[in-house]
């Protein structure tokens, strides 16, 4: 039995402790915004914040989340989260949208650590894959959110 919180909610997982956290989030907690893309930590579609650290949830067994707090796209709160989502709409970033939860989780993490990232900072931090090719707009949206000084419009 593994206990942790997801988006502030106390959660108990009674299944196989080796179950990747991704599937606990999606199929036990029923939060579908976190996506399965590759299963090997390459694409970033499954990105969440695990006790404040950007984490690819497909790589982490449920047991590693014991006692920790998980934040998913459905739970990003605070000014930075809202500013990033607002900037994502302003720049019309998503196309198919499948990778965007992970992109946004990575962007929020970046802005928490570095409120005014340069292009080079963005290149280093944003390693998520997007087959629709929204990278240029992701970059623009991060700069926009940064310029808003963390203020949601």
């Amino acid at each position, binding site marked *: 039995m593994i206990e942790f919180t997801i988006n502030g909610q106390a959660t108990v997982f009674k299944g196989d402790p080796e179950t990747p956290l991704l599937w606990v989030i999606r199929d036990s907690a029923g939060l579908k915004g976190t996506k399965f*893309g590759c*299963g090997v930590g390459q694409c970033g579609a499954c990105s969440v914040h695990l006790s404040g650290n950007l984490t690819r949830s497909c790589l982490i067994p449920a047991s590693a989340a014991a006692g920790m707090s998980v934040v998913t*796209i459905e739970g990003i709160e605070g000014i930075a989260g809202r500013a990033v989502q607002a900037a994502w709409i302003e720049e019309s970033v998503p196309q198919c949208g499948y990778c965007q939860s992970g992109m946004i989780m990575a962007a929020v993490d970046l802005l928490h650590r570095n409120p005014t990232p340069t292009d080079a900072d963005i290149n280093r931090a944003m*390693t998520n894959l997007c087959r629709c*090719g929204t990278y240029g707009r992701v970059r623009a949206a991060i700069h926009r959110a940064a310029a808003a000084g963390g203020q949601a419009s």
Partner: protein
Amino acid sequence: MKASELSCGTGVPSGIGACESSAPAYSGISRRRFLQGSAGLSFALALGAAPSGGSAKEGAGIGAGISAWVRIDAAGVVTIYNPVAEMGQGSSTALPLIVAEEMDADWDKVAIAYSPIEPDIYGHDAIHGRMMMLTVGSFSVEAYFDRLRIAGAQVRHVLLVNAAEQLGVALASLSTTPGAVLHPASGRRLGYGEIAQHAKVPQALPEAQELRLKPVGEFRLIGKSILRRDLRGKVDGSAEFAIDVDLPGMQFGMIQRAPVAGSSPLAFNREVIAALPDISAVIPLDHGVGIVGKNLPAVMKARQQLQVEWSKDAPAEKFDSDTAFEHYASEAAKGDAPVKRVDSKGDIAAADASAAAIYRADYLNDFVYHAQMEPLNAVAALSGDVPRAELWIGSQFPSGLRAEVATLLGIDIAKVTIHARYLGGGFGRRSWHDFGLEAVQLAQQAKVPVKLVWSREDDIRNGMFRPMSLQRMEAGVDADGNITGWRHRVVGDNASIVATGAKIPFYAIPNQAIDLLEMRSGMKTKHWRSVGYAPNKFAIESFIDEIATARKEDPYQLRRKLLRDSPRALKVLDEAVDMSPYGKETAPGRALGLAFSEHQKSLTAGVVEISLVEDTARIRVHRVWLAVDAGIIVQPDNAIAQMEGAIIQGISSALLETVSVKSGAVHQSNFGDYEILRMADTPEIAIRMIASEAPPTGIGEIGLPFTGPAIANAFAALTGKRLRHMPFNSSNIKLAMLDDGGAV
């Protein structure tokens, strides 16, 4: 969010039927009647909720079905039915926008819902000449534009006729403003919702020629910056893809497919797998072994223990991608090669005979994988002794899928329901039915609803690829320096794919022989964004530059000469050069390359700026300029986004992507060994959409084909060496650098 909802306008009140559910798209109207009404009209005429013409009020919230495309409820919420798949290309906003434009709807009160899968009503015949719901080929706006304008104008007409009657005034005295009919003389105003409550729909709607469609200058939605309706759900995690669908009692399925296409399982350790925890069914299929269980991780774990003996008689067993090009080249050289004509013009033999110089080159293209971010998946539920089937899926071809499911189960098509969901990328992969039919088979055998999921490894190893191909080019030039003869032989799998884009409809070359020599590798091949255009334009546009270089001509001026008969094409070319530094200035260590491409009726020319990272032998693309003529642009910002995306995908495939095959088995397995472009390698992109009042043409693919040849042309400008094998990865770059350069 209800399952059938696509999106609501920001001003749409919640709890209103039209916005919550599209299930009764034309409630109260029998399908037969619906179809009868379609005869002779460009869209099906449905009658109002009260066919006698009486009050529809008993259905407050049901709404008046004014046409197959539109329903208006008493509160004035206008539900517009979207007939196409949404895979990020934006058509699910663009098509309803066209209807809303002509009916003068208040966009904030428009809700968009998926149409039922009824191809006779909601399909288009742009591709195969018969009605299909098939979202491919950048056709959606082009195929539906006129029909949806007429549909919108017909709805507006019905509202005006009813308003005239309700107000007791002459039809000609009325006008519309977004969401309402106005009677300027008295200042009276009737909202569309008020009119719809008591609306009578005439038996015959006015034909197109009797309707006044808006001139382009009066558009207030088309061509403006309108937010795509699918965006909000895509930034808060609520957008629903098929992989996100859960049903009561649903289990999870995966399939171990044969490593070589066309092979079958002969024997496998069924008992071992069936005894594993949480596994409920082990299902032999023609092409693999299905495992169904209570959770996906358990199924994944069980599959690791599956041992299968596969048949070894599939044709692909004999196929190696390493040696295929040699074979293709020798087959292409045979005088009696069984070629199919793609296009021909003039007298190529006479052109050969009179040529002052002949140039030749071969270009090679590897297999390429779709790499859509959402792995293939579908959820299937069967019920009843005479089964009804329901399928939740992101499909580019739901009408074909629906028919295939009916055939598979031996049931009437009316018993098959397809619930459309967002596609986490399509790019051509999701216009085939395999993954939907697999889900149905597993649900049928396991006797529970099943969510079938492909792993990324499945998605690559069992992928359907853009075919590898060889392009053999030959051009004759006369004594005055004019290209008078053009031969292009395309060699590769799949006649319906590999030669698309091989024609050169805009180049004034009087004698042409373009043909196809079809190969049969046994590999599964599929349309991939822009289909054959990317490989063929790579060959054509590289070859044009090679000829120009050999003749010491400017590649831009040579293209101007070739495009002289098409002012539209010339303009696109000139704009691309105008907006870029091409021919003007080059930064140190960098070079520019130019290419032109049509894709069906849309035109582009683009310039790329590259450098070569010499120690790793990798190309970096720094900046891209693209001019586009795609007629009227319905959603300008979305069109730009499509260009950006196509450019990124084009650069990614041109620099990085290759699927290699040994004895029919795919070598690559995940994004570690099938790299696609990432943020750090994304260039700056500038797009110029050329203003036009011509009918809209496709925007989904036109931005892709120029990328490969523009990069190769820039590389030649930078190094003097020719890249003739795509992708331009480090091994192909190193080979090109060793070449003596004497190609043509």
